């Protein structure tokens, strides 16, 4: 293999073509910058396609609403741990970015008078928690799909360059610590490249697949987080994960809250409707975290179902075949296909399932990645940005409000694009690449290419997923975590790998000095 890789130059390189990456790229391409968007899958197959519920914005089309009420719901939902300035910006900007999408041609559902229809959603309230309000803008149950297609088409028009089935490998940092691009692999040919950029934006989505039970598609492996960690930068709030209470046991597929809204109930091995004990008022309709914890408690105390007593049951048959066939047809399909149970006759086995990563790469509201340096906890890492689920602007705190993720993507994707445009990058020269720009990636690829023994990646990944599931589940305590940390590091062979990285960094540091 050659000592270095061929180099391509762009004003901006974006890793990830989900909603976040494509919203940012659109802003840049329309401003005339040369933009490359890398994606390891075809852009419209990014995981954003799975989002059904909608995008939250206080348009007030159904009844009075206000961005302040949306802000309150978001902060309350976050367990008061979100960044309130960032949340204020997001909720204030929400209406603008949704109308912008409408003008891009996104086919939102409408009311008879032509305004955008908004549907009810858990946690959305009017007047600071007084009563529910309809705030979610949607395109039937395919909001994410419509968003991706709209953004993709606009990007093609704006001449964004898509590098499809390209896998980003590592960030390139120079001696000052600035990020000047990424290394990447064209998957079809196996050729590695350097993408030299004035701005590098990570938009690689969530990492739900590091857990054994996940509602996320297989591609959600958190690559951007790995790139940042390998570059020696810290991550934020990585302990904060949202569990969805009703993922199909063994498969992960999400069963929407609407099922419990229609009257579905949760039962333990004794056939008891246990939510009556944990939440006497709301019962099965209590919030996601309450239901998840209650289910986990039942399983931990030995009242789980099945041969391993490791799931509970979601019972629907009492609703009658008519309601199930008419109102929950897709749930029935999923249950038959993935749980081998027809809910008209038998209950669906479900478990609390990893759904969303609140933490990630720390950024400010301009999408600039920040890290502690010289006593400043939020020192900007020049050249590096992050948006979407991989980023932690900290608008979700400890718990994301439903429909706020799609909002996060478009608000901060756009804000990051605008910020980069304002930096007038077009006129600025590229910062030179360090001499060893490709070295870390080259060494890693060579090692993998030349390895004649060792474990298979999927076996290692499986062990890691099991460890995280067992030690970082719904309930965590010191004992579990202290045991799980070293185990996870061993599973991922981090010890060995970080040894190499440390040596590599030491070498590079010595040269820089």
């Amino acid at each position: 293999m050659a000592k270095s890789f061929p180099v391509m130059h762009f004003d901006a390189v974006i890793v990830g073509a989900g909603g976040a990456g494509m919203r940012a790229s659109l802003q840049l391409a329309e401003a005339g910058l040369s933009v490359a968007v890398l994606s390891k899958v075809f852009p419209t197959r990014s995981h954003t396609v799975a989002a059904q519920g909608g995008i939250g914005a206080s348009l007030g089309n159904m009844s009075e609403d206000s961005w302040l009420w949306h802000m309150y719901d978001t902060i309350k939902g976050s367990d008061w741990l979100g960044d309130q300035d960032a949340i204020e910006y997001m909720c204030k900007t929400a209406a603008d970015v949704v109308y912008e999408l409408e003008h891009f041609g996104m086919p939102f559902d409408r009311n008879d008078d032509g305004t955008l229809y908004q549907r009810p959603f858990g946690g959305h309230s009017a007047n600071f928690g007084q009563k529910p309000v309809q705030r979610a803008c949607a395109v039937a149950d395919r909001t994410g799909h419509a968003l991706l297609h709209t953004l993709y088409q606009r990007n093609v028009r704006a001449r964004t360059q898509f590098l499809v089935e390209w896998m980003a490998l590592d960030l390139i940092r120079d001696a000052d610590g600035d990020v000047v691009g990424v290394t990447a692999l064209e998957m079809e040919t196996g050729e590695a490249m350097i993408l030299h950029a004035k701005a590098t934006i990570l938009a690689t989505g969530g990492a739900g697949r590091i857990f054994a039970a996940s509602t996320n598609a297989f591609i959600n492996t958190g690559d951007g987080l790995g790139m940042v960690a390998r570059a020696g930068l810290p991550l934020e709030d990585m302990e904060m994960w949202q569990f969805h209470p009703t993922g199909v046991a063994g498969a992960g597929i999400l069963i929407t809250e609407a099922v419990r809204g229609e009257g579905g109930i949760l039962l333990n091995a004794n056939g008891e409707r246990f939510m009556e004990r944990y939440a006497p008022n709301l019962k099965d309709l209590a919030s996601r975290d309450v239901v998840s914890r209650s289910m986990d408690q039942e399983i931990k105390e030995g009242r789980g179902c099945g041969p391993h007593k490791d799931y509970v049951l979601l019972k629907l048959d009492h609703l009658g075949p008519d309601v199930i066939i008419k109102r929950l047809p897709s749930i029935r399909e999923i249950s038959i296909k993935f749980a081998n149970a027809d809910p008209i006759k038998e209950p669906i086995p479900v478990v609390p399932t990893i759904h969303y990563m609140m933490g990630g790469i720390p950024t400010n509201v301009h999408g600039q990645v920040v890290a502690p340096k010289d006593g400043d906890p939020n020192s900007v890492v020049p050249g590096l940005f992050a948006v979407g689920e991989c980023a932690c602007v900290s608008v979700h705190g400890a718990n994301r409000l439903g429909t706020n993720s799609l909002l996060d993507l478009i608000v901060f994707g756009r804000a990051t694009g605008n910020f980069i445009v304002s930096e007038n990058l077009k006129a600025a020269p590229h910062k030179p690449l360090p001499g060893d720009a490709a070295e870390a990636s080259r060494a890693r690829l060579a090692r993998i290419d030349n390895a004649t023994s060792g474990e298979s990646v999927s076996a290692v990944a499986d062990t890691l997923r099991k460890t995280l599931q067992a030690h970082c589940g719904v309930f965590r305590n010191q004992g579990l975590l202290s045991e799980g940390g070293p185990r996870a590091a061993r599973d991922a062979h981090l010890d060995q790998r970080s040894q190499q990285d440390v040596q590599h960094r030491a070498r590079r540091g010595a040269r820089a000095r």
Partner: protein
Amino acid sequence: MKIESDPNFLDDRQLARIRWRCRRGLLENDLILARFLDAKGATLTEEQVAMLDTLLALTDNELWDLIAGRCEPEASVRPLVDELRIA
């Protein structure tokens, strides 16, 4: 290195490419396609690969609609859709 292979079956590289294209945005499709490839990947015929390629070019929702039986496929890909439906 030259790989001698049965022309009727896929070589490792072709199979790896198909496996990667079976990485989708919807977990539903991921799971079905993975089951199908685990069971049949090694013995796929050229004809089946052509059908699979056509199906993989669909959007995730179109593909899932076909697999879940919400709509019917064109005759040219019918045999493979039938296999996916029971995978």
